[in-house]
């Protein structure tokens, strides 16, 4: 009843090809954006912005990047942490070596370097597939971990190998306060999400999906695998690289190679698997699941324990949070192997029929 497109006639090709063809979807997305941009900044606390929203949004952006490669083009990658690191360190070097560059350009340049490296490491995908490709991207992960830890030039020869971000100046406006950082990240992430959404439903995205579904068939109908796969690697690494810049500059402020180690790659891969492969909305859901749920468990378990008269110490809380988190991952994968995004679309289906299910 609430979610029914009956009566919404599309009278032009333009309307038929809109990003969100259904009016309710447009309304919902619009409402979310309005709340995110104009309501949350006035009611959120510092902790909410800097520890919940900023990291979740950045992880969602990185997940979008990875989803383009894995979910849309079918190329498994375990190197997303490395591409985040490339973006971060490239941007850092641009920022300190050419201080005149504006920050937004530095971010894009960081993404650009990451995209170029992504193309290089995407070349093996022309010959190898599946697990073997995953191993090849794993090599990228370890190589860049090693490179940034060992070659002093990348860290401007700081004694400990930890570097710090420049001031976040954008045309004279400095993003200092948590809420300003949140708005900066939100703006960039919304823009990239929109771009990605448009990209995957355009001719490039269709090529990626054709390659994903069956590469030989795709080749026979005239899609060049090299072009399709390498563009997927480039776009994916670019977005992941920009996410890396944001993670380093906006979220951490100071970082070391360990911030982008293999754990980060796995975190992103889990985020898109749980959120939903081949879905932009799923990236946000997956990132939120991976980032917010452990924090929620950490905060909520002691009071919950006290409700039943059980005082839990911090170590036990940490162990329990890990176990519950793991159990929830298994639960969601069994109940809905296609991810949270699929749950959402099932809910939409039900709403469409409600109150007359058949």
């Amino acid at each position: 009843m609430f979610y029914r497109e009956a009566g919404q006639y599309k009278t032009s090709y333009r309307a038929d090809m809109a990003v969100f063809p259904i009016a309710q979807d447009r309304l919902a997305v619009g409402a979310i954006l309005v709340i995110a941009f104009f309501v949350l900044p006035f009611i959120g606390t510092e902790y909410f912005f800097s520890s919940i929203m900023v990291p979740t949004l950045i992880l969602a952006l990185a997940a979008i990047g990875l989803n383009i490669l894995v979910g849309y083009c079918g190329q498994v990658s375990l190197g997303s942490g490395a591409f985040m690191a490339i973006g971060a360190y490239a941007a850092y070097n641009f920022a300190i070596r050419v201080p005149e560059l504006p920050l937004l350009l530095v971010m894009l340049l960081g993404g650009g370097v990451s995209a170029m490296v992504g193309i290089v490491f995407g070349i093996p995908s022309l010959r190898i597939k599946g697990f073997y490709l995953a191993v090849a991207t794993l090599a990228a992960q370890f190589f860049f971990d090693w490179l940034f830890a060992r070659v002093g030039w990348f860290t401007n020869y700081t004694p400990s190998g930890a570097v710090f971000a420049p001031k976040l100046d954008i045309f004279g406006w400095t993003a200092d306060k948590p809420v300003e950082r949140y708005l900066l990240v939100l703006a960039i992430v919304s823009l990239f999400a929109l771009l990605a959404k448009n990209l995957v439903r355009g001719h490039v995205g269709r090529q990626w999906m054709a390659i994903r579904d069956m590469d030989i068939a795709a080749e026979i109908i005239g899609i060049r695998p090299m072009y399709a796969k390498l563009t997927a690697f480039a776009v994916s690494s670019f977005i992941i690289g920009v996410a890396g810049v944001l993670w380093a500059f906006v979220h951490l402020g100071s970082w070391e190679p360990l911030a982008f180690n293999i754990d980060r790659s796995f975190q992103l891969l889990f985020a898109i698997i749980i959120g939903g492969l081949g879905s932009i909305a799923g990236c946000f859901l997956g990132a939120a699941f991976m980032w917010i749920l452990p924090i929620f468990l950490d905060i909520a378990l002691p009071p919950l324990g006290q409700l039943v008269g059980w005082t839990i110490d911090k170590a036990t809380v940490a162990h329990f949070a890990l176990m519950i988190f793991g159990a929830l991952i298994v639960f969601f994968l069994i109940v809905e192997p296609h991810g949270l995004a699929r749950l959402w679309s099932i809910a939409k289906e039900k709403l469409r029929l409600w109150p007359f299910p058949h």
Partner: protein
Amino acid sequence: MGVMGRWAAAALAAAVGGAAALPALAQNEQFIPMLSYRTGAYAPNGIPFANGMGDYYRMINARDGGINGVKIVFEECETGYATDKGVECYERLKAKGPTGAAFFNPLSTGITFALTEKAPVDKIPIITMGYGRSESRNGAVFTWNFPLLGTYWSAANIAMQHIAKEMGGLDNLKGKKIALVFHDSPYGKEPIPVLVEMAKRHGFEFIQLPVTHPGVEQKSQWLQIRQQRPDYVLLWGWGVMNSTSVKEAAAVNFPRDKMLGVWWSGAEPDVLPAGDQSKGYKALMLQHGSGKFPVHADVLKHAVGKDGSQSKPEDIGDVLYNRGLVNAMLGVEAIRTAMAKFGNKPLTGEQVRWGLENLNLTEERLKALGFEGALKPLKITCADHEGARSARVHQWDGAKWNVISDWYTSDDALIGPMVRDTSDKYAKEKNIAPRDCSKES
């Protein structure tokens, strides 16, 4: 709907429970956050340290009714030694209590680096006792960082002084091989510039052997040690890495009494897992060692076994437990110093920073506090946020740590200029105008 309803109910219950369980913070309470790790690869070392800190705060509350009548409220947050988790804990705890967090003890060099960027904005001092970034000793540039009692550069220099003494003088270092087995993180890399510089000056060969986090895989590093046969091995590890190193040294038959650990690699959890193999292993002391000093009696009486304390009486007096006591004491004394200027009420981070910068623990004061014999007098100034740079060496005899050396003091003619250069570079990159320390009071 049924499933969703139940989930919503559970979430609601959690939210309500969370609100109900929040204790009503009285106005006369000083909030102290405690970043700790009781899980993960660093837990063996993190647990005794956290126990020591918590027990000291509990003891102050029970014995004295708080600091000058202001009760201490502290909350632990589990970081697992991970930087992003540490930053989350910092954000969660920084504004708690009537005046916000008094200071933070990040307990990890990685978290220290991240918080160094955030502390000046939030105006909360960062105490990194015996760790953190070495150049932050320069308080003119690093206003909010306090690497009390010793930095890694001091540690590296003192370690080399001890090795030189065993070899019969600094001149005898010429032509020798010194290997550094280090945790491959900012923590482990900190001593390298000093060791490189000393290798240049004294003509010894310096071999760097990084070990990846968490440090349980060190076979190849110790194989290299077997091939290259260094005259001495310096160990810069933490958590399970330390005991693994001692075991691997035994496996390649490298003499344990030719190994010298930093003060984070010289506690009971580092040597006990290796059993008899660790006999003869040496480590620096962050001034204090193991064993009991007068304050332990009060801690045992007022804190151990009491509400919330997780320590067992037999663990009291372990190296890292004692270090937790020392760290908590320095924070409490900084608050007390600041109260002398700002009054006996809960203080803000900015006021506590003043207390830290004017902290002066004389021999008599240390005696009154019950830390006699464990610490040397300590005086912090605007120009020197380290306060003291002295250490001794202790050796494990299979059952306990024995102090085997006299006090060493690091060579400031070597380290002073390095601190200045590095902190100047930082100030330039970050556009910080260094404070004029002659005008600070």
